């Protein structure tokens, strides 16, 4: 929303010593955020008045002419195409460097071989009208070299208000309302005009017509006022009115529409004018199911019973508070109008305007919950304004006023010691009362307590509790003026959250010793990506209002977006090693409460760890990725094991031969895998990619309840280490062999694989495994004893796995 300084001055005395910038800053610090303070004269920076000395033909173009223009400092050569220039004229000259209101930037140019140092401007180029027929010729009062803004007497300053910061303040959507706050924080006075407006009087000229109004639902329409005015002549508004509308960004249309708009920007109350000849008696009712209305913008809209309409006995003539209907629109032949000033329920207006996708200046104000008393102030002002700009017009009806509303004005009990405790600084009672009074509250002083009555314009929704009053006092007093103290509370060590600790640990381990880099990816995925990965997305949670095709669903795995990371980085890196810890969202019910009752639950979501290692064929990324997992788990004091993954954990994009379940004890916490070559190719990935995905929830379960680490005594007796290497069929699993060995005898304490060799001299389809076997007893073992055990072990290996032992 825009505020005009001149308009504000109608309602509040602003001391001369306060610059517009200062006023903008004070508004920001006490009331609303001001996004910009713009002097209107800045629009015409580098546009000055010049006098045409000579006009000559352009040697190379029939339609162009060369003008010599005196701008006092110097004489400029300017090429001009307009037919109406003659020597002696005073004209607006845009100098090199000027940026005109239509966005045109003036540069030094050569036009058909002739230098042109500026531009002579037409009306439209200056944003003053539509005319482009010729250069704007200025009157004789203008002086050569004078700035164009000075010539136009433009001195207004426009403040741009951040609308979000007045969401809670229905009273601030106008110059009148804003003036009240300004007067409060500047400690100055509102004007006579402000006081007059606050006490509305609507004078009926001659009650010739009876305006009948029926409100069917006062909940949706707490107040409806209307009058009939005749003697209307539709024409353009006077320039002063147009200028003000333009200054706040509104396009003038005709005097009646302009007057209603003017009053809205002045007082914050949306008004509507109907052509009386097109309307019978006024009925405010809910729309009928599928009732149609064509709105002023020419669009036919279908309504339902939740929408409120203004109607006559035959038809709807407006969507209440949102937009008028085409069937009752003011037109050039209108002579009599019905002027509406009404109050509508904010929820209803909001629902309707959202449903129809129609947000107007009116609906924006209504949905903030306007004061029904404002209807009268605004109607009074509008009648007077129309009489002023349409001198033959007369109010010829009763003042219809159907109302049924009840505002909760309190009083609110404001305990001074509570207030000072809550704010944390002592603000004197006199000052508290003064601030509240200036804002329009009335205060009854009862020693420690003040009983504060809320003014109607703040009583709709805005102010209802003592904390609301505390804000009023504190913001006007100035937050930066408060004496600050740190909280004085009992000391206590914060509780720690195990998942958070685990996440931090993992990030350190992976970015540290494992030398991976952390990425953050979107929580969203799109169909194209999932399709390329063969992922069934029928059960993915979808966004109702996605913003991009690649972000329509919630991810169920981290892998898809990690693959995209590989694509991003593959041109520049031989090996890419990254990880992410992020949420996934599954299409089933989870454990987190959906509301305060806790019966219903949110969809299941959990944190996962994803790792991708991508490299060349020789890099053996699968082993590298598993190495990272083992390193991570070792750092977490966990023993990790891999199992062959069944189809239930095999991702649809995986190379089926390279998928392993990751297990801690009996718990499966995730998988490690390699992307299928063809799938990778389809994605444009040129590297081998090994992927690990681990559920942090499962991982946490394995750690939960685990006691502190205990120091273990060194072994008193020396271990005996024997190596054992044998050839087995390649399909015999390491896991099985290892378990067989470790469980073979209680003296075998550790088994460590130190070499794997496949193919070549061990024969096709075979592999050679070499282990260190560590024997340890509670006494010193003799060589023979160990040899005997080892022999038995070998025999067992031969029997169980058809292993062929190799000699060392």
């Amino acid at each position, binding site marked *: 929303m825009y505020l005009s300084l001149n308009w504000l001055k109608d309602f509040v005395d602003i001391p001369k010593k306060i610059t517009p910038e200062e006023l903008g800053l004070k508004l920001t*610090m*006490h009331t609303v*955020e001001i996004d*910009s303070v713009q002097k209107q004269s800045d629009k015409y920076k580098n546009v000055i008045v010049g006098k045409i000395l000579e006009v000559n033909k352009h040697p190379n173009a029939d339609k162009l002419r060369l003008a010599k223009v005196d701008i006092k400092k110097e004489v400029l050569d300017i090429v001009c195409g307009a037919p109406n220039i003659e020597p002696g004229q005073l004209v607006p000259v845009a100098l090199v460097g000027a940026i005109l209101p239509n966005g045109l930037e003036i540069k030094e140019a050569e036009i058909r071989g002739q230098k042109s140092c500026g531009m002579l401007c037409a009306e439209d180029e200056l944003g003053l009208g539509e005319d482009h027929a010729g250069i704007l010729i200025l009157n004789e009062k203008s002086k050569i070299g004078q700035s164009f803004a000075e010539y136009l007497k433009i001195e207004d300053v426009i403040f741009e208000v951040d609308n*979000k*910061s007045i*969401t*809670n*303040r229905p009273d601030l959507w106008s110059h009148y309302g804003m003036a009240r706050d300004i007067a409060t924080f500047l400690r100055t006075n509102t004007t006579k005009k402000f006081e007059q407006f606050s006490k509305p009087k609507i004078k009926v000229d001659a009650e010739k017509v009876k305006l009948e109004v029926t409100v069917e639902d006062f909940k949706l329409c707490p107040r409806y006022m209307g009058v009939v005015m005749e003697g209307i002549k539709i024409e353009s508004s006077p320039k002063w009115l147009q200028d003000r509308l333009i200054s706040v960004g509104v396009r003038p249309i005709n005097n009646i529409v302009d007057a209603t708009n003017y009053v809205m920007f002045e007082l914050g109350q949306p008004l509507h004018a109907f052509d009386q000849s097109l309307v019978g008696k006024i009925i405010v009712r809910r729309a009928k199911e599928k009732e149609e209305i064509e709105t002023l913008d020419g669009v036919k809209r279908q309504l339902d019973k939740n929408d409120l309409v203004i109607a006559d006995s035959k038809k709807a003539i407006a969507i209440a508070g949102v937009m008028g209907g085409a069937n009752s629109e003011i037109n050039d032949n209108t002579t009599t109008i019905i002027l509406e000033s009404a109050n509508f329920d*904010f*929820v209803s207006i909001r629902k309707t305007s959202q449903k129809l996708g129609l947000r107007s200046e009116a609906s924006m104000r209504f*949905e903030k919950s306007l004061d029904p008393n404002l209807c009268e102030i605004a109607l009074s002002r509008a009648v007077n304004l129309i009489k002023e700009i349409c001198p033959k017009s007369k109010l010829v009806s009763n003042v219809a006023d159907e109302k049924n509303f009840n505002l909760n004005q309190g009083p609110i009990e404001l305990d001074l010691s509570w207030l000072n*405790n*809550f*704010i*944390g*600084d002592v603000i004197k009672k006199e000052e508290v009362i003064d601030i509240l009074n200036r804002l329009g509250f009335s205060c009854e002083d009862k020693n420690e307590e003040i009983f504060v009555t809320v003014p109607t314009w703040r009583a709709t929704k805005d102010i209802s*509790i003592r*904390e609301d009053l505390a*804000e009023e006092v504190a*913001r006007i007093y100035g*937050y930066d003026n*408060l004496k*600050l103290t*740190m*909280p004085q*509370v009992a000391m206590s*060590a*914060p509780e720690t*959250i195990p998942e*958070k600790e685990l996440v931090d640990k993992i*990030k350190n381990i992976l970015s*540290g010793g*494992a*030398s991976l880099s*952390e990425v*953050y990816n*979107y*929580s969203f995925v799109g169909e194209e990506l999932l399709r390329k990965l063969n992922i069934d997305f029928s059960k993915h*949670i979808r*966004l*109702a*209002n996605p*913003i*991009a095709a690649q*972000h329509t669903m919630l991810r169920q795995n981290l892998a898809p977006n*990690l693959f*995209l990371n590989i694509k991003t*980085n593959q041109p*520049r890196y031989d090996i*890419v*090693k990254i990880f992410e810890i992020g*949420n996934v969202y599954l299409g089933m019910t989870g454990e*987190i409460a*959906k*509301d*305060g009752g806790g019966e219903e639950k*949110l*969809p299941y*979501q959990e944190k996962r760890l994803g790792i991708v290692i991508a490299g060349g064929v020789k890099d053996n990324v699968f082993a590298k990725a598993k190495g990272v997992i083992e390193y991570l788990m070792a750092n977490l004091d966990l023993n990790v094991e891999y199992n062959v993954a069944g189809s239930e954990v095999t991702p649809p994009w995986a190379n089926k031969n390279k998928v392993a379940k990751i297990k801690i004890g009996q718990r499966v916490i995730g998988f490690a895998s390699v992307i299928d070559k063809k799938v990778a190719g389809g994605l444009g990935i040129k590297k081998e990619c090994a992927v690990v995905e681990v559920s942090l929830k499962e991982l946490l379960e394995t750690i939960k309840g685990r006691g502190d680490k205990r120091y273990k005594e060194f072994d008193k007796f020396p271990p005996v280490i024997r190596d054992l290497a044998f050839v087995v069929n390649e399909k015999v699993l390491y896991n099985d062999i290892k378990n067989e060995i470790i469980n073979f005898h209680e003296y075998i304490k550790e088994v460590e694989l130190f070499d794997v060799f496949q193919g070549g001299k061990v024969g096709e389809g075979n592999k050679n495994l070499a282990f260190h076997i560590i024997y340890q007893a509670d006494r010193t073992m003799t060589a023979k004893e160990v040899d005997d055990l080892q022999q038995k072990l070998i025999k067992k290996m031969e029997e169980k796995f058809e292993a062929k032992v190799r000699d060392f």
Partner: protein
Amino acid sequence: MKEQLIEIKKNILDALNDVKDLAFLEKLEKKYLGRKGEFTQALRKLAQLSGEAKKEVGSLANEIKKDIEKKFVETRNNLEGKTDKKGFIDVTLPGEKIERGHLHPITLVQRELEDIFKKMGFMFLDGPELESDYFCFEALNIPYHHPARDMQDTFYIDHKNEKGEFDLVMRTHTSPVQVRAMLKYGAPLRCIAPGRVYRCEAIDACHEHTFDQMEGLMIDKNISLDNLIAVMKELINGIFGRKIETRVRPGYFPFVEPGIELDIKCTICGGTGCPSCKHSGWLELLPAGMVHPNVLKYGGVDPNVYSGFAFGLGFTRLVMMRYGIGDIRFFNSGDLRFLEQF
């Protein structure tokens, strides 16, 4: 016997005088002093002697052995010394490379903030990113048709409740953690909740639909507005490691009353005005306020006994300021050229 030993000694010392390199020295060492070396063999014969002779020769042999060993050490030192002096070593060569990984810049700054709050006794909480309308809005004093809902462009989940309304959202702020935390831990309470939030907004250099915030909440007896501002200033100074000029102005958020905005003097232009601060000289950094009594009630906390403050730090923005990152899209790009800088 004696002569033999002296002979050997002479041979050894002569030979050592001619040694030119370490390899030859080692050969000599083996030849004379090794297990089957000449001197060792000679010493073995000592065992065959007896009485005085053994004693006499024995002490001579010992002396000779000391001399020889000394000479060996000297020669070795000599040779090694020469090598050290002769051979040029390029000390500017790099060492053996140890690869390093990188944490995401958001993680890094998050940890700095967490440290500040840990010292002040705040606990760290997390909350669901796919959140209910109830916790994201309603329990925060933003009922279904409240205009404040327009302040945040919400991603709704394609799921309607019995009333036909979308009732699941991607959380638009970290504030839902406030009520969840109160319900779980009650009062008094001190917590921060860093995390991801979502807004239905097209992406460009300055806008993202996915970014990070950090919620803070403190509830206790006698928590006041000036406490809030004091803690915020402490936080800002902690973040930047120096005193930063701030200002506090009104701000509207339905879940706090009063609501404030804490701005800092623009760290880029120093307050003179630049595009980053929209030429105002100030950067909006910390929306905050006193927890609205209705929100305390939703959290099961008695507003007549307790009061509290809450704040929401625009985290991604802070990281951009901290490192001078001009394009918000880098954060979710996974581009290592970016990530490896941190």
